[in-house]
Structure formats: structure tokens, C-alpha cells
């Protein structure tokens, strides 16, 4: 196929921006704005008790009613966005750098180091992640610091496995052999030959890891082991207001829906991205 035929046609553009991608982008963009500016716009502070009525219905007190202590659910939701997303981003950045760096090191180093690192990783992956977190936190305590580090390390095992596999796959490609036969250094081979070819799958993995971190952190908070009240975190808010469900209050539903919408949004984008990568691969095969 000639290069000229690569210009995007109209139909290509249509498949490029699918409705699900647009929905995903809108949702994620919305929550990003909320996380950035939400607290500034919130009518109350996260810990302000605005009414002595617990579980006041939406509209009566504030936009979304009050929670079990009489705090404004809407304001807490806005604060929670920053807390939850900020924590998740921090955890993801940590786990990602850890996983990618170690994964690459394992992939390019010799049998011994690779074997050792992979076995340790396998051992950590032999635990269901939430159980491992529970065990570690029972020993080390349930502070926020410990939770962040624990979740990041657990999460990094998945990143490690992927980046090691990616780097391994590419390191046996002929063009890497060409570089080796030129006498290139390991550093050059890793950074110039291997890394550029792993960027796309790693980007998708970042999205997946981000949703995983959100889910993991809010689940721990929900279990009472992550973010501690009175800080506003979506998981904490669900836990606090669970009782309210019995009185017909939606105070627990709102933060749960917030988590759900955010993770769905991110996953819609990732899904589109992965599909496109698949498309590109098959396109390359056709050429």
C-alpha cells in the first residue's frame, strides 16, 4: 500500500470518535474539572455541619441533601473528588513507575536477576490483592501513608508483569538483534529500541491501573481501612451513609455513583484506545 492512501478518510474519522469515546471523555473531563475547582466552588466545607437533620432529602438541605451528621452531601462530594482522584493518581504514578522500571530491568537483565524478580512478583500475585492489603495493614496499621504504599506495591505487580512481557516480546524482534549486532549498549537498546514500542500499551495500562486504584482505595475506605473520617472520600462517604439507605436516603448512592461513573468513563476511553491499537496492528499486518 502506498503512503498516500494513509490520509484519513471521512469514515475513518467517524470510527475514530465513537460515541462511547465521547461519553468517556466528557465524564472524565467533568470529574477532572470538579477535582480541580470543586472545593473552591463548594457551598460548605467538607466538615461543616449545616443542619441538625441527618439524611435530609435532596433539595431540602443543599443540592443533594445532608448526610448522617447533617453535613452537606454536595459539598462533600466535591471535596471527595479531589481526595479520591488525587490519591488514586498518586498511587498509580507510584505503582506505574515502580512496575515499569523493575519490569524493564527484569526483561533486559540476565536469567538470574530476572528469575528472582519474577518469582517475587509471582509470590505477591498469588494473593488476592485485597486480602494482601488487609494482611499488611493489620500488621503495619491503617494510616493513609501505609495504605498508599501498600496499594501501590500491590498494583505494581501487575504493571511489572505487563511491562516485562512487553519488553521481552520486543527484545526478541529482529530490529533489536540488529542493534545488538551493532554493539549497542543495553541502555540504548532499552531506551531507543524497546521503550518507544511499548508506549501505546503502557498508556492503556495506565488508564486501567488508574481505575483499579480508584476502586481499590475506595473499597478500603469503604471497609473503614483507608481514608479516615471526617475527610471526605467517596468510599468513606458510602460507608458512613450506608445506614441511611434504610431511611430512603440517597446519601450513600451519590458517592458510589460518582466512583462508578468515573471508572466507567476511564474504561470507555481505554477500551476505545485498545480497540484502535488492535486496528492499527491489523492495518500493519495488511500492508
Amino acid at each position: 500500500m502506498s503512503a498516500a492512501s494513509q490520509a484519513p478518510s471521512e469514515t475513518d474519522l467517524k470510527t475514530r470518535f465513537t460515541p462511547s469515546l465521547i461519553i468517556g471523555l466528557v465524564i472524565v473531563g467533568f470529574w477532572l474539572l470538579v477535582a480541580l475547582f470543586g472545593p473552591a466552588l463548594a457551598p460548605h466545607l467538607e466538615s461543616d455541619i449545616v443542619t441538625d437533620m441527618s439524611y435530609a432529602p435532596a433539595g431540602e438541605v443543599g443540592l443533594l441533601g445532608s448526610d448522617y451528621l447533617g453535613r452537606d452531601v454536595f459539598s462533600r462530594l466535591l471535596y471527595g473528588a479531589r481526595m479520591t482522584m488525587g490519591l488514586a493518581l498518586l498511587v498509580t504514578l507510584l505503582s506505574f513507575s515502580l512496575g515499569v522500571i523493575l519490569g524493564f530491568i527484569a526483561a533486559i537483565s540476565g536469567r538470574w536477576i530476572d528469575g528472582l524478580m519474577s518469582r517475587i512478583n509471582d509470590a505477591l500475585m498469588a494473593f488476592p490483592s485485597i486480602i494482601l492489603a488487609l494482611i499488611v495493614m493489620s500488621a503495619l496499621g491503617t494510616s493513609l501513608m501505609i495504605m498508599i504504599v501498600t496499594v501501590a506495591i500491590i498494583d505494581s505487580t501487575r504493571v511489572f508483569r505487563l511491562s516485562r512481557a512487553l519488553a521481552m516480546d520486543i527484545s526478541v524482534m529482529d530490529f533489536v538483534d540488529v542493534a545488538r549486532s551493532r554493539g549497542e549498549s543495553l541502555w540504548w537498546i532499552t531506551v531507543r529500541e524497546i521503550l518507544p514500542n511499548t508506549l501505546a500499551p503502557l498508556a492503556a495500562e495506565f488508564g486501567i491501573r488508574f481505575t483499579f486504584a480508584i476502586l481499590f482505595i475506595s473499597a478500603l475506605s469503604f471497609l473503614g481501612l483507608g481514608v479516615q473520617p471526617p475527610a471526605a472520600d467517596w468510599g468513606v462517604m458510602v460507608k458512613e451513609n450506608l445506614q441511611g439507605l434504610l431511611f430512603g436516603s440517597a446519601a450513600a448512592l451519590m458517592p458510589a455513583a460518582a466512583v462508578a461513573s468515573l471508572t466507567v468513563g476511564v474504561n470507555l476511553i481505554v477500551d476505545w484506545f485498545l480497540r484502535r491499537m488492535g486496528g492499527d496492528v491489523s492495518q500493519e499486518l495488511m500492508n
Partner: protein
Amino acid sequence: MGRLLIRRILLGIVVTWVVSMMIFAATELLPGDVCHAVLGQGATEKSLESCRERLQLNQPMHTRYLQWLGRLATGELGTSLANDLQISDQIGARAWNTVRLAALTALIAVPLAVLLGLIAAIRADSSVDRGISIGTLCFISVPEFFTGVLLVYILAVQLRWMPAVANYRDLTRGDFLEVIEALALPIATLTFAVLAHMTRMTRTAVLNVMSSPYIEQAILKGASRSRVIIRHALPNAVAPIVNVIALNLAYLVSGVVVVEAIFRIPGLGTLMVESVIYRDIPTVQAIGMLFCVTYVGFNLIADVMAIIANPRLRHPR
């Protein structure tokens, strides 16, 4: 094949052993010792001493590890640090709730997921498939507590079809219908959590098989649609599907913890979370070990099934 299976099973045993060492070693991560951490700054020398006595901290680590393994094996797990009850009694009392929840979920989720996955695969790229794809993507993304809370809110609070919180403690004696009614929402929640993954993976597994040249060959021999699927595709898809199922059953272990918390079911998950909060380390270790053994076991089953179902390995040259 026999050798491969034995190797795989041995590996499972080694993994379990490593896991047990790591669980045991978790307590050794502490800067001081367990008793210091658990009893806090205000602990008296005397209470510390008795705690150490009880956990036999004055013995070397490997002796304690072996003793711990022995206790795990015999079920003599000692008493809880939180309330002086026998750990094994507590676990025994609650295990049934957890096992029942997980088993009933599996009973519903597995056939449903395989069916949905098959439908999606057979009608690939149709609107049905796309619907299933979007739906499952959403359910993979949302947390269990969202599904749970939403179900409670709609079915119990708004529609008043069922109780939002049942009295699970009495359930051991309750009749079957009562159990079902009380567990319907937890089961539904947990089902959604595992269903999505299983459906998607089943679809992929079947599609992979369906795109192989031997399927095309069968079509070109004039085989009917049902013959292509039943005779040619299924025997080759069984292995990956069984693999998918076992992997997702392993995932139930995690899901159970959160779902029990949503519905306040007194099961192993809630017990473990409570124990973490009270820093009742012996109990956490015991339940953690139980969960991990289950998890490793299901993963092992997944591998073994994949080996057994592979014709190349079943009929070696």
C-alpha cells in the same frame, strides 16, 4: 501430560508454602513486635509480657513458624487477641455464611456468564454483542459497593420488594426461601461483579477458536452452524472457558469481603476486616491463609483444566 500435571500441582504446593511464609512474616515487618503494636503506647509491662507469652514471641522465628503451620493444620488456632474467643470457633461460625454466599453466586453466575459469552461470540458484532460488550464493560468498571447500594436503593428502598438488611444470624436455621430472600441482593451484587469478566473472557475464548482455519474448513465441508459450534468449536473452547471460570471463582474471594461489608453479613470477610481494625493479627493470619489457599487452589484448577483439555497434551506423539 502426567508429568506436566504433577509439576503444576507441585508448583501450587510451593506457592501455598511461600504464601504461608509471607503471611507469617507480615508480623515481623513491624519495627517493635506485635504486642507493642497491638497494645499501643500505654501498654503496661505486664500486659505486654502476657501477650508475648501468648504469642510465644520469645522463641526463635522459625520455631514459631513451624508451630503456626502445625496449628493451622490441626485447626488449633489459639485465641483471638481482640476478645479471647477461640479463633477456630469464630471462623467455624462464620465460614458457612461466606461459603454459601460464594457457592450460590457461582451457581448463578457461571452458567449465566458462559451463556452470555456464547451469545455474544456467536452473534459477534451484532447489536446484541455490542450491548453485552458495553454492559459488561460498565459492570467491570463499577465498584461492588455501587452495585450493592444501587440494588438496595431500587429494590428494597424504592420498590420495597425485599428487606434491605436481613438478620443473617438466624439464617442458619431459616428455611430455604428465607435464605434466598435474605441473600438475593448480596448474591446479585456479587454476581454482577464476576459475571462481566467471565462473559467477556468467554466471548474472547470462543471467538479465538471461531477464527481458526479449521472452523473455516468445517464450514467449507458443509457443516451446519450447530455442527460447527458443537463439534468443532466447543471441544477447543472448553479449556479456555474452564480456565476463565476458575480464574473468576478465585476472584470471588476478594468480592466476598466487600459484599459482606455492604450487607453486614457475618462472614469471614467481615470477621477479617474487624480483625484488621482491632489488629487481631492471629485471626487475620488464619483467615488470610484460608482465603489465599482457596485462591491459589482455584488458579491451580484453572491451569490443570487447561492442560487436561489440550488434545496435544492428552494424546502425546
